[in-house]
């Protein structure tokens, strides 16, 4: 087994999940409460990675982040290195690619909350942030857990984007799924099989844990859950 790739993948997934939750919580809260019509556009953009072929996203990212693009030049000016074919570039691409897996479960949870609880919080003098941290998040633990687990698992399984933006540099951008592909190409079926089995078991465990968590949550606090979004996702691409 390619332990270097496994360790790299785990680091990538943890970092992506952490960054994404910070972005997704306020974004989902805003989407759940906004009544403006154009929020549908934002929702569509957030959901885009669900339907867009990963190679397409990867291609655009490669172009957008190339050293010749303004974004690429800006990145070089502050870090001194390019984004494509680096770990940082991989994290950036993963964050974009897993965005719907973090936002949608949270959005479903927030939207299912009893609105009067949010009204009660407002009338009691609490602002948006306090309402988010003291009412919405504690009552959306299932959605939060689903978002975290799905983002993590999805990042572990991503392939197309990684290949496009990261390439196959051991210790830098070679993730588990690239390693499996590589082994298969090199006719090293036993290594590919071992790593694949490890990923398969990991995926089953993660999803079981998510569903168990949600069942528990449902029993104590009967609300429509973020389940729908869990059903639409898969962990490998």
């Amino acid at each position, binding site marked *: 087994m390619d332990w270097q790739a496994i360790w790299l993948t785990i680091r990538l997934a943890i970092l992506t999940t952490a960054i994404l939750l910070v972005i997704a919580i306020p974004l989902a809260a805003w989407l759940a409460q906004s009544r403006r019509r154009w929020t549908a556009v934002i929702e569509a953009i957030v959901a885009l990675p669900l339907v867009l072929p990963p190679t397409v996203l990867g291609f655009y990212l490669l172009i957008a982040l190339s050293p010749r693009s303004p974004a690429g030049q800006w990145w070089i000016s502050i870090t001194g290195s390019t984004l494509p074919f680096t770990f940082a570039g991989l994290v950036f691409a993963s964050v974009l690619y897993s965005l719907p897996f973090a936002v949608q479960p949270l959005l479903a949870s927030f939207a299912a909350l*009893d609105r*009067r*609880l949010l*009204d*009660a*919080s*407002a*009338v*009691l*003098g*609490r*602002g948006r942030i*306090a309402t988010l941290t*003291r*009412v919405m998040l*504690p*009552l959306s633990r299932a959605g939060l857990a689903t978002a975290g687990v799905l983002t993590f698992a999805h990042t572990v399984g991503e392939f197309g984007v990684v290949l496009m933006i990261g390439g196959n540099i051991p210790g830098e951008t070679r993730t588990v799924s690239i390693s499996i592909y590589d082994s298969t190409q090199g006719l090293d079926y036993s290594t590919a099989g071992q790593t694949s089995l490890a990923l398969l078991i990991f995926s089953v465990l993660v999803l079981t844990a998510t569903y168990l968590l949600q069942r528990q949550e449902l029993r104590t*606090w009967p609300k429509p859950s973020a389940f729908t979004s869990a059903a639409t996702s898969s962990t490998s691409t």
Partner: protein
Amino acid sequence: MAETLSVHLRRHIIDIDLEVPLDPDRPVTVLFGPSGAGKTTLLRCLAGLDKPSPGSRITFGPHTWDDDEHHLPARRRHVGYLFQDHALFPHLTVTANVAFGLHRISRRDRSQRASEALTAVGASHLRDHKVRQLSGGEGQRVALARALAPRPALLLLDEPLSALDTPTRRRLRTELRQLLLDSAIPTLVVTHDRTEALALGDRVAVLVNGRLRQFGDVEEVFSHPTDPEVATAVDMETVTAGAVIAAHDGVTAVRVGSTQLLGVSDRTLAPGSSALVCLRAENVALTLESAARRSSPRNELPATILSLIADGPVLRVDLDVGFRLAAYITRPTCDEMDLHPGQRITALVKATAVHLIPRTIAATPTPQEPQPHAELP
């Protein structure tokens, strides 16, 4: 200068102009009317939870809460709001719920203030309970404590007792009134229940179809509804159409079908005009003696009992006196008089208890037994 809560509200069907005096001795104003009248929307706009349409203006004493330029957000209005089914935070304990709005006072005083509020509503024993463990009545107390704890400038109660079972509701009704009087916080209570309005309010504003129909002291509004829709809204048991025969000395004679009645009206009614006759069942007495004497301005109506229906602790007696008339009697009285359907008795109603409301052509009242008669000229 007495301060007022001044409301000029436009939103959807609602078009209301209301001036509520902020009077600590008579703090409770009831917003009363059938469902769909816009009561809750009015309350939500006052709380800042809904935005009024352009042309609205809400001021509270010297503070402008809403006009075409400003909309003060709910969190800065300093109002207490009791939601219909309480909206307690299910993930917090009772004390944490009550202390939720106390973030502006020091951490040290917070729990002190929360327990004071819980004691005031008689719920101090529930302090450490989880919200899920509370019964309906307990939840209501805790929700009230949560609304009262930050000492709001205005208290808004949306159907405060409707989520409760009948015995709890009866018990809490009087308690709630006393509590509101003690707190002396100006309060608006939304209800569609007449008894609740009578039990809680100092003043009552009757809303029908998004309009303010009548505003005044509670007894005044309930015993003298000024228009047919208010009469329907305040749930007079008997509202029936009649024709005015004659009027003098403040007493008006009307004919309902073949029956003649004496009643009173705010306005002088011209003979020949039509009017609604409003009677509250509490004001109808029954006697076994046959109608004979002709003293005081009192109506003595030969009646046939149509039905006897239990209504809480009393019996509602429906009578045929030429039109359908409702009366309330207690069970012991009913047993003593041995009343049964089909029996012939006499109904006694003072003229002052018969309210005559001039009937407008545009209004659409729902008289129980419409009588054919001449329309207004």
